[in-house]
Every structure is written in C-alpha cells, then in structure tokens.
C-alpha cells in the first residue's frame, strides 16, 4: 500500500487545506484503496471527501464479494445514495448546502480468492494498472469541461465508470486525483519520465517527480501492490 497526498497552492478559501482524502484496507482475502477529491469551491469539501471515503469503506464491507456480480448502476446508485444521506446529515448540522461537501470518489477492490479487481470512478480521477513492464489506463477521467460529476450531482450514478478485470499480469493498481495526473500527463500523453517510474512501480521516484513540479491543485496518488511494495510514503 503506497500513497502520497499533498495540498495544492490554490483553493477558493486559500487556506491550503488538502481537499483530497485517501483510505485503504488490506486483509487476507480482499484489499481496497479509495480516493476522494473535494470540489475546490466547496467550503467543507475536505470533510465531504473524508465522509465519502468512510461511507464507501462501510459500503464495501457490507457488499463484500457480491460487488463483483451486481449490476453496476445498482452499485453506483446505492453507494451514492448512502453517501448523500451522510453528507446531508453533516450539512444540516452546519446549516450548510450539501454541495459544499461534494467530492469525486474512486476505488478499487482486489479479491485475492477470485483473482479479480473491481474498479469504480465517479469524477475525474484516473485509475491505472501496471505489470509486465507496462501500464494500462483502466478508467479515464470523465469530461469535466463543464464541471465534474461529483457525489452530489443529480443522478450522478449514470456518469460513473466501473468494471471487473482479472489480476493476471497485474502487479499494482493506482488511483490518481486530477491534480496528480495533470502533472503526469502532457495533454493526452504520459510524461516519459513518469512512464519510466510507473512501469517499474518505483513510487518513491514518482512521488519526487510530482512534488518537484509546481502545482495548484491537490495532488494525491494511492496504489495497492498485488505482489510487493517498494515505496515508503
């Protein structure tokens, strides 16, 4: 399990609080990694990202293995429904609008018995898998030119992206917030230096490459090694 999460320079409220949140859990049968990126204009989106991750963790525990076999819209609809109930409760305490808590949400579940990975993304996070000296984009960031689809978007589940893949030839799964992948990519192509460290799963070097760059947005990456770990956060 490896992660980095650094605050960006600019937020609507200029308090430099990191509005990304990452969560992970690993046990003998399954592991999961979760990442949420709070909306920059959301006053409480850091809390919203944390709540989204916590609810997702509970949802994954409750759903268990069945997540691999259920209808994707059902999963998405139910998860977002749970998240919105929690966000609404929190918003009412502060007498705030629920949109102040909005965030993206992305996760990957690895089931070691089934040898499968379930991935899910709502918003502009990037999910990739690497192995055999290559990497593959599993879930691309959504179209955010008119704004991003987030946890509080009406019928947001219809805009989510999810799927199941085999763990064959895969050594690690990585989720990147948009602040991270914007630094990793130049337009639509991966930076050659970033590519080199990604296929080697050398996350120390990846972390250094990204923190050396000037960034406005929060920058978070979380990865799960299926085979071993070579990174210290």
């Amino acid at each position, binding site marked *: 399990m490896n992660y980095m999460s650094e605050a960006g320079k600019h*937020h609507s409220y200029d308090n430099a609080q990191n509005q990304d949140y990452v969560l992970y859990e690993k046990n003998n049968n399954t592991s999961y990694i979760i990442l949420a990126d709070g909306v920059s204009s959301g006053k409480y989106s850091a809390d919203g990202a944390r709540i989204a991750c916590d609810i997702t963790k509970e949802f994954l525990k409750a759903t268990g293995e069945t997540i691999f076999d259920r209808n994707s819209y*059902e999963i998405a*609809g139910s998860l977002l429904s749970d998240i919105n109930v929690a966000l609404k409760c929190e918003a009412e305490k502060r007498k705030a609008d629920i949109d102040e808590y909005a965030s993206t949400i992305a996760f990957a579940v690895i089931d070691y018995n089934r040898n499968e990975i379930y991935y899910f993304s709502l918003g502009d996070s990037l999910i990739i898998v690497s192995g055999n000296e*290559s990497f593959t*984009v599993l879930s691309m960031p959504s*179209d*955010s*030119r008119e704004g991003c689809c987030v946890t509080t978007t009406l019928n947001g589940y219809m805009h989510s992206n999810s799927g199941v893949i085999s763990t064959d030839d895969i050594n690690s799964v990585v989720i990147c917030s948009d602040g991270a992948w*914007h630094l990793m990519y130049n337009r*639509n192509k991966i930076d050659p230096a970033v590519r080199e460290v990604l296929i080697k799963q050398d996350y120390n070097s990846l972390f250094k490459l990204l923190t050396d760059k000037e960034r406005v947005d929060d920058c978070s990456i979380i990865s799960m090694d299926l085979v071993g770990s070579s990174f210290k956060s």
Partner: protein
Amino acid sequence: MVNERLTVKMKDKRENMLASMLTGEDFEMKLEQLKEAAPSAKPSIRAELMRMFACLKIPCDSMREDEYFEELVDTTVLPSFDDIETKILETLFANFDDYPTPEQSMLRIVDRVCDKSDNWQDGTLRLRILKQFIKYGNYLTYTADVYDNDGNIVLKKNGKPKQSKVCIYNGQKYIVEYAEGKKGADANSNDDVINNIDDDIFAVLETATKAQKQPEGKYGLLRLCDDLACGRFKAGGSIKRDLYLFAIVYNMSFYCENGNMEQILDYETDIQKNLFEDYYSNNLMRYLTNAYSGNITAYEIDPSGQGINYKNFAEMVYVYYLSKDMKRSMKIKNAEEMIKRLSSLTNKNTLNVSRNMATRYFTSKMTQEVFDLSEDDFERYIAENYDCSLELEDYVDSKGEQKQRAKSSMQTQSSSYTAFRLYNKLIRDMEHFDLSVKRENCNYGLWFADVSGLKKGMNGEFFENARRKDPEKLDKFVKLLFAINSYLGNVFIEQENKQTVNEEHREVSSRPVSTMNIQSPQFMTRTALITAYYYYYNAKIENENRYKSLVDVYNDYTNPMSGLNAYLEMAHYQPVNDKNIFDIAVIFSSYAASHI
C-alpha cells in the same frame, strides 16, 4: 506552466430540465410497469424510479422492494400540469440562453487550449486566433522545395534545391504593413507584429471584395480568423482543413482509440470532442447571432456532423502530424507537403472504397502503431491503403465554359454511405408502422409549437406571459423555434389563391422537408439522420400506444442498443448531445407527440 485546473461541480442542467416535466402520472405509470415486470427486469425499472425521484431531489434507494416505491409515490407530493406543450415551451424558454453559440464554443475552446503565458486573453477572439496563427503557424506559410513536372526537385546553380514560399492563406503582407503602420517603424519579427496589431485590423473585411477574402486573396488569413471566431463554416469542405490547421497551431490532442493503453482522452484539448463535436456541428444557436447574415449560400447550412473522417487520406495525415512531437509550423509544412505528394501520385492505389468498406473499416486500421510510424513509413502506408485521388467537380469558368476541376483533398471519400443506409432503413421502418405515413408527409415539424401559426401572431398563455416578462428574449426564442423547425418541417403560410383549404393542406402535406428527402450519401448529415429517427419514433409510439414520460423518451433516444444513439454511433456521428439545442428540442417534441 502552472496547472490551473481545479475540480468544479457540473451543473445539473439536463436532469433539472427532465425534472421540470415529471408528473405524478409518470410515477404512477412507472409503478405499474414495476408491478408487471419480470423479476429480471425489475432492477432497471427501480433504477429509473430512483432517477425520477432524484430529479425531484427526493432521496430514494434503488435496492429496495416494490412496496418501498409504492409507499414513496403515495406519500410524496408530486407535480402535475395540464398543458404539456406550454410546459415544454416554458422549460425551453427558461434554458435556451444557456446553450452556447458557435462563437461562445470557440471562445471556450481557445481559453482552454491557448498558452496562458502569451497573455492574449484580453484581445477579441478573432485577434487571439490571428496571433496564434502568426506565432505558431508562421501566418500559415512555409518554404518548400520546387518540383518540375516530372516530380524532380529543381536545383539552383549552386546545386541547392530551389525553394518557394507556399501560402496556405495569404495575408501576411497586409498584416505586417498594418503592424508597421501602428508601430511607426519596421517590424523586425513575428513578435513585433503581434505586439502591434489590434482588432481594427479586421475593419478592412467590411469593404473587401470577394476575391480579396479568398484564401489566396489579400485578406485571406484575416477572413479565416474572423470566420473561425464567428462560427461561419465555409462550404466546399475547406472548413475541415481550417480546423486541422487550427488544432495544430493550438497544439490540440488526438486520442487514438485503437491499441493505445497508456493515453487518456484529454477532453480539454481533444480535437474530436472540441472542434468536431462542440464547434463544427449544426448549432442552431447561430441563428441568434449575425454570423450567417448576408450571403448564406457561401456557408454550410447543415454541417455533416461527421467528425474525423477516417476514410479521408488527408485527414489522416493531419491527425498523424497533430500527434507528432515537433514544432507546430513544421507540422503544418510536413502535413501539407505529404498531402500534395499523395494527391499527385502517378501510380496511385486505385482502391475504390465500396459502400461495404465503411468508415468503421478504416477506423479499425488506424491503430496507435500506425500513428507511431516514421514519416516515410506512414506516407507509404497511406499510399498503399487509401484512395488518394481527388474527386472531380464540374464548374463554369469566367467565360461561361463548362469545365472540370479537382475538389479539395478534404472532400475525398466524404460521403456517408452507412449513415445513408441507416437513414433509408428508418424511413422504410416508419412506413411499415403505418402504411398511410410516407416520407413526403413527414413535415409537421415541432409538435409542441405551431410554428406556422407564429407567423400570424404569437397567441396563447405562454407567449403572452413571455412577452410581458421579456419581449427581447421572446423574439430570440421564436427565431430559434423557426430555425429548429426549418430542419424538421415545413411552414404552412396562408396566402390567397384559388385552392380550397384542404387542397392547400394536401399540397403542403405532400411536400417533403429537405432533411427527409436526402437522395445521395454525399448530402447525408447528422441532422437528417436525427430527423428520420424523429419521424420513425413518433410513428412507432403512436403505433404502440404506450404511455411515455419525458425520461422514458430521453432514455429511448439515448439507448445505445436500439435508440437514436445506436444509429448515430453506427453512422460515426456523435451521440445525442445535451449541449445541442436541436437534439434536446427533438426529444421534447417526441414527448409532446406521445401525449396526443
């Protein structure tokens, strides 16, 4: 460059529009469907109910039993309204201003893809585009070797290749003179020119002759920038070339779907998404601008909506260079020269792309491996696999003589055979539902507004209220309704004649609308395919006589297996686009038609 992109929440525009049309009856009918559905079908109906409740901002969990939904419907105060047509007019009227005009689309694109460090954001859009062509495209000019008629390089006395200046667009001389006039001294560089031009440079277009505004004319480049900024699409295929040149100077990206596992689709800079879907489309909001005033025959009235044409060799060359890592002016030069060489091959591959070799065949061939080839190998690949011949067209010269000339390379293989086949299939299927319905009768246009009646006067509750609140906005809205209706139907104008009313109606009702009368793949457009589907769908639901909510109609249209989206995808057109007012209006109109 500092990355300024931050996460912003998307507006719920589409869902809010759908929500505004929901009624209690919609929920009741959906519950009936849930009760009668087979167990395997229930989850999707529950999901639809969840979506409908969510539109009204009522929390709902789709993974619950039927009784949960029954109780939710019973205990929730649900909306109702009497007049669907009025409701649709009110909804569209409240939202149509949010749809971008072509100019607004272009402004958004330029804001996204420009290099912020150039600091040109304060200039007018056409001026910004002009500066971009100057700095990164060298005025769309380059120097190239000269070849003789046998294809051999012409050498100078010193043995070096003779070179000449190639102007894709003329206009550099006038622009430099203008800048020097402003500066009061010679301009020593392109940056010098850029720093000394302003929007007044375009004033000359108002009095320029037609010849001066042609690409080879004195103000060709100025005209190009003005057209791009205003969203004017020149007829004859040249607009696509202009867009590729634009994409290159703005360093836009191309996402190859085949065999590329590492790239992402960068929506901010992608050429297909931004230029060929959002910008170069049949955006009817242009009717609310002055862009198409004057000589509209010079412009495309209905852009094909085709996007990147993988059957066209020239477009593949542009896409290839777009993806290359080299100086932008070099990309332009190398692309233009490669296209010229391919066009003039003497032993051309005479592959005649038959109707069975659909665009899909070429889309599958153009893999990332092909785009990674060296320039020489790529050129060879295109020569071996593509029809690089230029189609001929008849024209009348200045002496009145009938002659033939080669069309632009962008017009090679531009016919949409698959789309035409699907279009005709839809019309045949429609006529099958109801033997009395023929394509000639399919001209009633918008169902929720009597556009013919609007010519006589705008009566009715909606128009009276809107006129009272915002007459200027109403005028724009009515203009838009006419524009939308012009693609869907005919307008019946009462005029004095000796015919009876029935005879007049029979005549109008048998005059096909142009989009329902496409006779050749060459004239096929996305708008025509949507219009055919519109009439097909309306005939189908009348035949089925089933209740449909607006959400149901929207889902039918966007169903990727059986709806309009399925046809659009097969025809290689973009799917139903929430940002296109025509697409949305057509769906609303089908909804109104389903409630007669």
